[in-house]
């Protein structure tokens, strides 16, 4: 006879393409992961739960920066539209877009710090993925703690004192895994990244000294940026767990950060410049990218200098790395023949060439 277990929802978190929720019954907690077409379940019996761990992390800051990346231009645009006599429809559209971007930004800040919440039993440690905020984790803990304690009782200080013995055993028992061997890699991707940096510096310099509408250069810049991203990501994959020197690895990350910053700055400049020119339509948008603009000239100058510096330093470091690898490579074994063997070889060669022998 089937008896349907009764559950009460404790917490629920929805996202695009599914949801996760935590439910409680008389005997256990149920973690439900819903992917629209199916549900998966994990059960944790109250009598088995050893600990609940809440681990604070920096995701709120990360989220704020990511959302801020989107919000900042929108707010700048909205601010620049005030008092310029724009069309009311345009102002309303911009306001709604800004509000749509601003809402998650503000919600992220007001929901408090982020965390990961784990539930430990004697055989597993499971991430309670619906819980992502400290405030929610505390609320869930306040709900389940009395249920667990009603079954297991409270953990006294004298009981906790036995824990120290266990921890010493745990430290002694757990063998340290051997370090994974490092790979010797080809630095083709790295070389491509730094060469593209130099090429980027050259194009920026050309655009700086020769103002005008160069369509070929504009396309080249786009190709260089895309190729740089691809090569940089390839280089980062290659250098993972490799023998590549640490400064070189850091420089590759710096190159990626520089590329991202460059794209962001260009994007920001384009948006602000384009929308700033809306009130003088007909002449504004075509002027985006005019090197007579001091800000644009400064961006180009800084870009060419930094790209050149990164590219040169990277190539020099790659050269030094190549030399180091050459010096570490074992030399081939010498082809040394003892004198007797060499004499025998000479005699054999003489026979083959048809020279007269003593016989």
């Amino acid at each position, binding site marked *: 006879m089937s008896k349907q277990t009764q559950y009460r929802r404790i917490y629920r978190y929805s996202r695009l393409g599914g949801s996760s929720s935590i439910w409680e019954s008389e005997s256990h907690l149920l973690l*439900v992961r819903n992917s629209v*077409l199916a549900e998966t379940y994990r059960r944790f019996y109250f009598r088995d739960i050893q600990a609940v761990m*809440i*681990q604070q*992390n920096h995701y709120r800051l990360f989220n704020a920066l990511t959302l801020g990346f989107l919000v900042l231009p929108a707010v700048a645009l909205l601010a620049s539209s005030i008092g310029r006599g724009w069309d009311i429809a345009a102002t309303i559209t911009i306001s709604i877009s800004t509000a749509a971007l601003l809402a998650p930004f503000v919600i992220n800040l007001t929901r408090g710090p982020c965390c990961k919440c784990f539930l430990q039993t*004697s055989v597993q440690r499971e991430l309670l993925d619906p819980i992502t905020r400290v405030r929610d984790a505390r609320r869930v803990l306040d709900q389940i703690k009395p249920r667990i304690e009603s079954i297991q009782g409270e*953990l006294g200080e004298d009981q*906790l004192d036995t824990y120290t013995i*266990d921890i010493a055993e745990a430290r002694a028992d757990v063998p340290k895994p051997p370090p994974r061997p490092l790979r010797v890699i080809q630095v083709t991707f790295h070389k491509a990244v730094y060469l593209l940096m130099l090429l980027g510096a050259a194009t920026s310099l050309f655009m700086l000294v020769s103002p005008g509408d160069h369509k070929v250069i504009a396309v080249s810049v786009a190709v260089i940026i895309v190729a740089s991203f691809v090569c940089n990501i390839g280089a980062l994959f290659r250098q993972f767990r490799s023998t590549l020197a640490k400064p070189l690895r850091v420089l590759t990350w710096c190159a990626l950060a520089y590329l991202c910053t460059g794209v962001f700055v260009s994007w920001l400049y384009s948006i602000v410049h384009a929308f700033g020119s809306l009130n003088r339509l007909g002449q504004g948008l075509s002027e985006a990218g005019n090197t007579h603009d001091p800000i644009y000239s400064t961006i180009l100058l800084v870009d060419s200098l930094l790209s050149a510096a990164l590219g040169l330093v990277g190539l020099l470091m790659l050269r030094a790395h190549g030399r180091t690898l050459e010096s570490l490579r074992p030399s081939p074994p010498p082809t040394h023949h003892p004198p007797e063997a060499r004499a025998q070889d000479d005699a054999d060669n003489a026979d083959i060439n048809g020279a007269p022998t003593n016989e």
Partner: protein
Amino acid sequence: MTASVRRHIDCARCNTPLPRELINLSDFRPCPKCATPQWITAFPALVEPPAAVEPSDASVMDGEAGCFYHDHKKAVTVCESCGRFICALCRLEFNNRQICPACLQSDRAKGQLDDLDHTRPLHDSTALLIAVMPLVLFYPFALATIVTGPLAIFLSIRHWNKPSSVLGRTKARFIIAILLGSLQIAGWIFAGIVGFGQIVSVFSNV
């Protein structure tokens, strides 16, 4: 197969065993190794010794009942489902009942043990999704309703009696899927009649 049994708490980030001083405090404290702020609430199951395992190899003596599955072993209880005598090895405690492995397996095959399922397909959501998506995506995907309408009805009828979520769901999704599917079929029939009427009128004019 042996499963390692935890008697301590590790940092979830660096896997360092955490000292007793970090447990059951009122706020976050940093991990001694990775400095990640942790707040650990422990319960007695952490420090309690593992339950003693009852020996299952007690041999059956004269006048004693033997296990149904192991003749030579002494029966310790009766399966609450089938009434067979079972030994300590065969005794499974599940949902406050003591049953034998065969009953557990047959109950599970019949879908009578919700508490053992770890995944369930949601046929009602699938049927509803199939019925709704072409309408939401508009033209040209709305043309797919010629297939999705009947399919939504078919899925709803076929899986009507199958167990859905363990959380308990109504048949509302199935009903909505059938209604939408019926509307889509009705729409196509209407379009067909109108189209056929127009063709007939064109030919009659000719």
